[in-house]
């Protein structure tokens, strides 16, 4: 019984982090129709920045704020000065599909290399701001600590904020319109380019948050979030790249599947499980679970 509860709790924690990554990827996809592989690099970079601030100020919270803000800034810079020139140059042909993806791959490599230049390749650790010891319930310690609770709450609040932003505000409307139909949006007076940059900024902030929440449970090094990127991407695809809700749902499904398979069957099946879930979902719904049936065909 305890094992079952543990599996559920750890799945929730894992799923929450995946949700942040998949949300970031979906945000970029919706605004730019690009799979941003560099998201992992951005996340690690902003976490290093957060790490430095934490060490110098002695407070995790300052580091967290720094990570979120720098994440937004870096995301915006990447869109404005990197992605936009690429889109200007590549207007026609199927290269349109590949070039941005490949460009973000290249960007990932550059970011990781820069991190290696500045901070070296050693593993760093970041201490959590609250206790990581599990709560004690009826004399048993469960696999859920104050820190896990903090992660879950942060992710939930972020999701709620994002949903409110997108559904209830004018900016949110602008974001959705620019993604869905840039020409019409432009005609309505929306500055599509600026709005797109905003999308990248929000995504960058989300991945910055993901990094700071993830690293205390793991180790900080240039490739530290590569696996997270892969799982975040798979989660986003499972949920349907067009849907924020899908991103979260996909992340939870993936998190639960992986943890349960690992706990009850074998740890060796972690990656194959991800693949099987993905292909099962896509066989039934090629656009992901929560994709809208009417929508742009890519």
């Amino acid at each position, binding site marked *: 019984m305890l094992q079952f509860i543990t599996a559920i709790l750890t799945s929730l924690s894992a799923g929450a982090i995946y949700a942040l990554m998949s949300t970031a990827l979906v945000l970029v*996809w919706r605004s730019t129709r690009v*799979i941003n592989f560099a998201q992992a690099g951005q996340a690690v970079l902003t976490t290093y920045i957060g790490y430095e601030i934490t060490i110098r100020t002695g407070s995790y919270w300052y580091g967290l704020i720094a990570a979120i803000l720098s994440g937004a800034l870096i995301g915006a810079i990447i869109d404005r000065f990197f992605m936009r*020139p*690429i889109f200007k*140059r*590549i207007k026609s*042909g*199927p*290269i349109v*599909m*590949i*070039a941005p*993806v*490949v*460009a973000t*791959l*290249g*960007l*990932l*490599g*550059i970011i*990781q*290399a*820069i*991190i*290696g*230049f*500045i*901070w*070296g*390749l050693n593993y760093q650790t970041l201490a959590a701001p609250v206790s990581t010891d599990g709560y004690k319930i009826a004399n048993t310690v469960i696999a859920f600590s104050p820190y896990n609770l903090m992660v879950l709450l942060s992710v939930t609040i972020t999701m709620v904020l994002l949903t409110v932003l997108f559904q209830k505000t004018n900016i949110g409307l602008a974001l959705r319109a620019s993604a869905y139909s840039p020409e019409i949006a432009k005609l309505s007076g929306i500055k599509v380019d600026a709005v797109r940059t905003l999308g990248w900024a929000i995504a960058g902030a989300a991945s910055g948050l993901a990094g700071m929440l993830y690293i205390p449970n793991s180790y900080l090094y*240039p490739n530290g979030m590569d696996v997270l990127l*892969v799982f975040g*991407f*798979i989660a*986003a*695809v499972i949920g349907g*790249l067009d849907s924020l809700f899908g991103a979260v749902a996909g992340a939870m499904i993936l998190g639960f599947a992986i943890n349960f398979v690992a706990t009850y069957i074998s740890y*060796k*099946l*972690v*990656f*194959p*499980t*991800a*693949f099987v879930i*993905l*292909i099962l979902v*896509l*066989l039934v719904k*090629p*656009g*992901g679970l929560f994709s809208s049936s009417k929508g742009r*065909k*890519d």
Partner: protein
Amino acid sequence: MHKISANRKRLLAFILLGWALLFIGDRVGELQQYQGAFVAMYALAIASIILLTGYSGQLSLGHSALMAVGAYAGALSINNLKLHPVIALIIAALVAGIFGLILGIAAARLSGPYLAGTTLALAISLPTIANQFTILGGEQGILFDIGTPPTRFGEEFSQYKWFFWVSSLAALIMIWLLSNLVHSKYGRVFRALRDNQTAAQLAGINVGRQKAVAFAVSSGVAGLAGGLLVMLISGVSPSAFPLSLSFSLLTGAVVTGVYDLKGVMLGGLVLVAIPEIADSIGSRVGGSDGFTMALPGFLVSALLILAVLFTPNGPGQLLKKKM
């Protein structure tokens, strides 16, 4: 008449290239022969990506897994079925091709990023499956011995030269076949799929089936490349096919022009030469540990970004501008 002479011209070009490689192979040192073998292997792998992405418009991030399938099939043929190495390489291509066909059928309905995601998941999960079955040798892997060069070539014929010959010949033949394929009716069908699926459908093309065919052929080629790779490292193991290999192949394809098979050799050269150059720059410039270690990755990524920015259609574009 027109078509026949174009085909023949191509055949002639390939034969010429083959002789040139033979000549070069005789004149260079063992290290260059070994590197040359890698170049040929990478060129072949890049060709498989160009076929799939440049010609039929499907993006795959999982070609490392397809190479692995071919590699294991080849290794098992030699070790368990005791077949001749050349037959093993053919089996490598066939098995990978069949695997690709199944995958292609399953993925035919998927577009752009969804296909990319699926192939990505395949790339990370397939190597770990090798651990599950003892017949696949687990993490240790299986030996792949292409054997020593035939004795009639004499004492001086080094193992590396043999690698170079086998690798280059296999790559040359396969790329010639591919070249014929893309210049045939199939090539036009694939390009139609790439450019406008709806129009292709209206023109009567069975989109799903053709996409699967493209995937199958691409996988077969990748499988052969995988067989060549493990020949060069004398054994196959899961860690020989990391996700980064898929990304490298994509890099090579973009850098040399993803639309055209002509650049593949250049792509292979880039994949082999750039890490070497980066290494030597790193050791010459010195600097902190972090710097020298991260430098090769930085150079490769920078090259990729420059290529995407300035020659998204391949270096041929630069040449075209000059004419």
